[in-house]
């Protein structure tokens, strides 16, 4: 089944939303579902900040998304939200991309399910 994911807030480390979304996606992929796209909206854009440096014994949220992107999951950062927060293209991790809300619309059209995580 094609599943889309929107992370609406739950910016990196402040809310659990990013963690739940990641665990959900991992489990969905393990079951053979296709992730149609992960749309990072509002403050969720900070999930993929390239220069993120969490404490060494903590999870690395941006790296996790980048690795998921390397596996072929389309990770889309909302352009308007990114601009408001100073997240230029060179400041986001590899294997993710900046695009518009139109991408969320397409995810909603193509996916059979769309799950939202947020604050």
């Amino acid at each position, binding site marked *: *089944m094609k*599943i889309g994911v929107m992370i*609406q807030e739950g910016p990196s480390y402040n809310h*659990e*939303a990013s963690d*739940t979304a990641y*665990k*959900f996606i*991992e*489990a*969905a992929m*393990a*079951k053979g*579902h296709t992730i149609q796209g992960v749309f990072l909206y509002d403050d969720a854009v900070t999930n993929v900040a390239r220069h993120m440096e969490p404490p060494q014994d903590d999870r690395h949220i941006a790296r996790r998304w980048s690795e998921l992107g390397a596996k072929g999951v389309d990770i889309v950062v909302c352009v308007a939200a990114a601009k408001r927060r100073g997240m230029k293209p060179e400041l986001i991790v590899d294997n993710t991309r900046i695009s518009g809300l139109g991408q969320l619309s397409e995810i909603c059209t193509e996916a059979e*399910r*769309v*799950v*939202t*995580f*947020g*604050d």
Partner: protein
Amino acid sequence: MLHIVNKSPYMKSSLESCIRVAQKNDPILLIEDAVLGAAAGGGVESLVQGALKNHPVYALGADISARGLSSLTPGVKVIDYADFVDLVEQHKPMTWL
């Protein structure tokens, strides 16, 4: 339809709104801070018991363990992320933030 709730019912009214609108037999899944509502013996137990009359109620095990909740309201089913995916496969989801 699967109703996903992530806020503690002690602090925020999301679960109440969800229960009010959810159609009979629609499953309700408690994740993140919302699992606090699944703990037995608390002031919101009657709210959850009421929900159980019309809905299957699930709570995410990882969130339950993280908060050290040992005793849950009878009827609440503890599930893992894989079960969460199955629920989404079976029902279109709505998240009550």
